[in-house]
């Protein structure tokens, strides 16, 4: 298990006051909140910051954590010392704002999962119908173009006969409808929590998330592709093959295309009404000068082109 340096994560000194820690947390949580931040790893960062704050904001947990010493580095292989938490008394778990089940093994080994008796209590109001539940389902971008059937495994916690929570797994096959995109929800009627007594079961809401793709980026129904081209394709124009999630297309590159030129393929994004577009962004790639012939060609350009890319800098 990896050691986590909570002070480093929060960007504060080990001697920071509780106020400083709170300020650091406020700033970082605004910066990385997944609903606000556009950074791709924001969700992970947000969780990590939440975990660090869960420990550092609580003087008891912070004191216990500080006992581990200042010599540990983030990522170092870590095992808690055998008697490490003796003599510390943690009051009521102290899991106030954060969802402790999201925390790392490191956190759990030090402070426990904090699961027992937390969040599992049923709504005290008598309710006939089961609760609606939410889960995320990760699908491929291609599924949104063609539709697909995906098998998903859901975990939920049930109180066992002995009063302790158990994790129960359930596998469902689900149709992923064509045209769905990240952030949308699919409602499966009657697949939420079981009803009480004669009550109907609740509904299950699946939030769609795309598996990150090695070369497409997706925003809403629009899809982006960085397309590598050679300098001569960009300058002289060319016809090139371009992949799209619905198959290859031929694309005309206009002469004198600058790197970063964005081209829109209308209707080649995720289908729908209106359908999305596919944006192709040109990336000029330099051929390597790794043979005598390639070197000779570069030398020839050097001699014949009289090209000064720094002219605008006045040198």
């Amino acid at each position, binding site marked *: 298990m990896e050691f986590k340096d909570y002070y480093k994560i929060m960007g504060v000194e080990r001697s920071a006051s509780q106020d400083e820690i709170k300020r650091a947390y*406020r700033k970082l*949580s*605004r910066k990385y*909140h997944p*609903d*606000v931040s556009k950074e791709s790893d924001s969700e992970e960062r*947000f969780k990590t910051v*939440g975990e660090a704050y869960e420990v550092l904001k609580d003087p008891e947990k912070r004191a216990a954590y500080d006992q581990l010493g200042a010599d540990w580095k983030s990522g170092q292989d870590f095992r808690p010392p055998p008697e490490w938490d003796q003599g510390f008394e943690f009051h009521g778990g102290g899991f106030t*704002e954060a969802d402790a089940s999201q925390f790392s093994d490191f956190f759990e080994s030090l402070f426990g999962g904090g699961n027992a008796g937390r969040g599992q209590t049923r709504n005290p109001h008598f309710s006939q*119908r089961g*609760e*609606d539940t*939410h889960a995320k389902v990760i699908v491929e971008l291609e599924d949104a173009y063609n539709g697909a*059937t995906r098998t998903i495994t859901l975990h939920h916690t049930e109180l066992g006969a002995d009063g302790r929570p158990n994790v129960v*797994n*359930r*596998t*469902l*096959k*689900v*149709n992923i*409808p064509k*045209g*769905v995109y990240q*952030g*949308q*929800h*699919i*409602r*499966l*009627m009657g*697949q939420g929590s079981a009803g009480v007594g004669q009550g109907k079961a*609740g*509904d299950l*809401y*699946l939030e769609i998330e795309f598996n990150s793709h090695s070369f497409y980026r997706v925003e809403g129904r*629009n899809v982006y592709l960085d397309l590598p081209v050679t300098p001569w394709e960009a300058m002289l124009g060319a*016809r090139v093959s371009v992949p799209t999630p619905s198959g290859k*297309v*031929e*694309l*005309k590159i*206009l002469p004198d295309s600058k790197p970063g*030129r*964005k*081209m*829109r*393929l*209308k209707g080649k994004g995720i289908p729908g009404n209106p359908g999305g577009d596919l*944006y*192709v962004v040109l990336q000029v790639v330099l051929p390597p000068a790794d043979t005598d012939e390639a070197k000779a060609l570069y030398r020839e350009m050097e001699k014949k082109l009289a090209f000064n890319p720094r002219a605008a800098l006045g040198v």
Partner: protein
Amino acid sequence: MTVTSYIFSGHIVEEEVEFSLSELSQACGVNAEWLITLVEEGILDPHENGSHKNRHQWRFSGPCIQRVRIVRRLQQDLGINLAGVALTLELLGEINDLKARLIALESGTAEEL
């Protein structure tokens, strides 16, 4: 572990589903009073069949489900009050619109062969 071979199909909430007040409160796991506050704050905008006063007639569009969940997370995680959340949502919407316009301005239509 339960395994079923049945294939479940559902509707895309954002496009095909509308909620009444009580359905939305059930779907988001929040109480109806709080949703009424969101309507009063102008964060949710139900279509009205008839009088705005009659909450039983309110119909919420599918995207409201995500909006409610975002509001709740922003409140819990960042400690923003409802007016602040409303402003945040408006600004986020504006950023998205600007981004879309920027992309439209920067890009030429490609010729497919």
